């Protein structure tokens, strides 16, 4: 199963970092996200894209996780040569991740 089957996401930029909010479609799947979508797995998923570190924050109250990926936007904002200079599609890239249920 891929994350897109159980979660939705929105991403945005802060300088050269991107944040990805990952939200369980059904609140009962939140523990699954906590177990499966670790900072390490996200770093592995974005290997070669996120050149810094991945930090994860838990928001059980919203059934959501928040990830910060540093050095992930090729310089970020106005200096990046990336097509997706602001990481707007990176949340959707995370949803491609395979998880074990």
């Amino acid at each position: 199963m891929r994350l897109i089957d159980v979660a939705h996401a929105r991403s945005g930029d802060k300088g050269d970092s991107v944040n990805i909010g990952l939200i369980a479609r059904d609140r009962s799947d939140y523990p699954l996200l906590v177990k499966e979508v670790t900072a390490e797995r996200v770093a592995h998923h974005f290997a070669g894209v996120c050149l810094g570190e991945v930090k994860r924050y838990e928001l059980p109250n919203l059934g959501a996780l928040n990830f910060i990926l540093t050095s992930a936007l090729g310089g970020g904002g106005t200096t990046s040569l990336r097509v997706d200079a602001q990481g707007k599609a990176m949340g959707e890239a995370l949803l491609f991740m395979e998880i074990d249920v």
Partner: protein
Amino acid sequence: MNTVRIANGQAFWGDSPAAPVAQVRGGDIDYLTLDYLAEITMSVLRKQYERDPDAGYARDFVDLMSEIMQECLERDIKVVANAGGVNPQGCAQALLDVAASRGISGLRVGVVTGDDIMAQLDDLESEGVPLQNLDTGTSFDEVRDRIASANAYLGAEPIARALADGANVVITGRCTDPGLVLGPLVHEFGWQWDDWNLLAAGTVAGHTIECGAQASGGNFQGGWRTMDDLAHVGYPIVEVSADGTFVVTKHPGTGGAVTTATVTEQLLYELGDPATYLSPEVTADFTALQVQEVGPDRVEVTGARGRPPTDSLKVSMAYSDGFQGAAMITYAWPDAIAKAELADSVLRTRLKDLGLPLRAIRTDLVGYNSVHGRVVPPAGSDQSEVVLRVSIWADDPDTVSRFAAEIAPLVMGPPGFTGLLAGGRMRPSRVMAYWPTLVPKSVVDPQVIVRDGV
């Protein structure tokens, strides 16, 4: 007043010109808030101001106000906008001129200044304020002589002051986006500057609507197919109670939707540590927020917690950082990708021959893998077509121009050069880069002046 209804009508400069008009005409609101300033907008406005001392603010705002000002005054809808750019006084004057020429009476424009610290930079350095890059730790010396603008993020306090002084339109320069919402709430409810939970609630309310329709069905990954009539998407409104609880909603008959999912996506947007959302008046904590649907297109948010702010203000500077250019050529079947790759290789060999001093070069195959790269691998490679995009970054514009001259000759490379997607030969575009830093609050002194129309 039981609740205050605050609408957002503009999430960024260039957002829908129809949105703020629809917010005024679509139903009852008490405040219309408008955000015009992206991180590097100030440097562009400063250039305009240097050429013309009457410019340097968001002219679009004046055009908008000339359309809605009369109605806002008649219905007592107050407008709060960070449209002032580097010249809030000029922006206010333009509004007063419009009112005078139309015979509109009763306009009182509150002008917030003091965010512009460009003239203080030398003093700050000599006082030992490091001004290093907040994200990278890089020393300010690297960019000092290329700084084009420097503005501290002011908060809600000067906005609340302007409203208390009787302003019905408040114009600021650089200001936090949530401050545009918190200022009116502090003014209306008489919240104190140490009511931490209330200040946090107002900040969360501001965060929820600051990106416009992103709270109400726009850019909604969780169910974009189910959003009706995005052509007329309803921009969000918060109905805030004196105890800080608020309902996110939109005008009836508009497109999109307000659901727990749309609101939750927005709450997480551009969030860092959710327990530590920094702003000038309060540090807000999102980790106990509760979001629940209380009616159709009505979502209630409760549980914001706050604590005292830090003693620093965030500063956004822009500095000139070289030039960029990008060329785009479409190649088609057969072997579209192989042809694009050969063209890229020909181009790069030519650039190597020329010895151009490039800071960076990047090749993308648009329509194939330019956005997700290897994270989401392409399904196959037998495309009907693909766009070769080669972009470069250099210190000087001549390098970009010389690179541009190498693009058209690729017609003699692999077959099927279909012409340049972006039109004629590329022009070097100047890069304005962003330099975030901190300054002690004590060095910034926000000023408020209220100017009366006729």
